[in-house]
């Protein structure tokens, strides 16, 4: 698996898109940090960008890489290699190279800004950890969709729909259900609802770490009680790990049964 990972990783590192992605974060980091005096505001803006953009890029890159490397995959399938190591190698290659662009792109301006001396280092690290998790989650979901769809256009369509649903539609449905059932106690339901969407989960995790939960009212207090504690943090990280593990397991399962 590591050899496949190495080839996929270097293949992507040579592609100009990785540099565009890296340069985008570099520019974003520099602009937000050096043209903005308030560090915590910068982190919030970054969060908003990361939480929407990272899943989108992970999804598109995942689907694109799978379909583009089809020939390479077929070449590998005739070699004495396990199917699971071929596909996992490619998946980790994509996820790692995207994570690298993210970490380096945001990390360099932050280091230049002197972040190691500031208190925001923990907020910022959490931001990066969440970003890496989202990259791994969404590229795994994208690989799943691509594996299940021979048709490129269909695969792309489903992948974008998946992103749209988790990034936007889910929140809408979630809010609507909260309004409809507002007469009932909803603390637990909304906690579970948050756990079921990796994007919501990430957002809540960062917001509460930033200590602006007072803005969120009563529900915020419940959330704070949960996510603010180390127990809540562990549970959330655990939920994110499950969100990576399940799609990865399905990649292994699905790839074993597929005809090429």
């Amino acid at each position, binding site marked *: 698996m590591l050899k496949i990972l190495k080839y996929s990783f270097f293949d992507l590192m040579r592609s100009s898109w990785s540099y565009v992605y890296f340069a985008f974060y570099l520019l974003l980091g520099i602009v937000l940090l050096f043209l903005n005096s308030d560090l915590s505001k910068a982190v919030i803006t970054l969060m908003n960008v990361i939480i929407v953009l990272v899943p989108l890029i992970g999804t598109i890159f995942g689907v694109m890489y799978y379909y583009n490397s089809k020939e390479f995959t*077929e*070449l590998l399938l005739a*070699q*004495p290699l396990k199917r699971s190591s071929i596909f996992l190698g490619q998946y980790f290659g994509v996820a790692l190279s995207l994570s690298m662009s993210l970490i380096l792109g945001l990390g360099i301006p932050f280091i230049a800004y002197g972040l190691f001396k500031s208190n925001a280092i923990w907020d910022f690290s959490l931001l990066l950890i969440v970003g890496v998790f989202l990259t791994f989650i969404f590229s795994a979901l994208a690989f799943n969709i691509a594996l299940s769809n021979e048709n490129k256009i269909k695969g792309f369509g489903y992948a974008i729909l998946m992103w749209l649903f988790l990034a936007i539609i889910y929140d809408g449905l979630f809010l609507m259900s909260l309004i409809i059932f507002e007469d009932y106690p909803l603390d637990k339901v909304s906690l579970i609802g948050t756990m079921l969407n990796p994007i919501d989960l990430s957002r809540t995790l960062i917001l509460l770490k930033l200590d602006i939960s007072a803005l969120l009212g009563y529900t915020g207090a419940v959330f704070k009680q949960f996510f603010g504690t180390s127990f809540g943090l562990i549970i959330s990280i655990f939920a994110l790990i499950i969100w990576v593990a399940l799609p990865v397991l399905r990649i292994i399962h699905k790839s074993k049964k597929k*005809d090429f």
Partner: protein
Amino acid sequence: MVEIVDLHKKFGKNNVLNGVDLNINEGGIFAVLGPNGSGKTTIIKSILGMVIPDNGTIKVFNTNIKKNSNYRSKIDYLPQIANFPSNLKVIELIKMIKDLRGQTNNDQKLIETFKLQPFLNKKLGTLSGGTKQKVNLVLTFMFDSPIVILDEPTTGLDPISLIRLKELITVEKKKGKAILITSHIMSFVEEVADQIVFILEGKIYFKGSIEELKTKTEQNDFEHAIANILTKNHA
């Protein structure tokens, strides 16, 4: 070497293989023939584990290939359409496959045989179809495995390369290898093949030498013998 028992495969509603039994237990050149869509490539891909059969067993050197991948180190495969990652250079691709599969020095000789030196530093995406096929042949033959599977090896080759390919196949045969070839070029098949495996509607219709095929169909000429099977069964 290869033992296939009662192989079945459906793609959706399309029944491609209907109980194929095939036994290859000695070296030689086996031509797998049949009309378009008869399941030649599906059989080959099943042996390679690229297509998962619905039913039946395949054994390579007496090991069941199900949930196994190591047996593929005993098989060299030339795919039908030479599609390679287009942003890779020829030399990088050869190096990569060697890295994945094990070291070999045969590649130098093969590059020489097919006169590929001027293309080594070119990207695969810029090569012509015939040159890609030559790269494909180098990748296939460089590992010297006991089983060789060639899916349409002649596609796009110029006459000189075709002669070299025939020489190469004859040399490999003398080493006692089992070589499976699919081709639609009957003159090529007649020239190189020891045994014909004829597939019709997902089953083995005939297995034997060219002479036996001629006797069976009462034709003097190989091409007509094949045509005879086809017209008889589709008339």
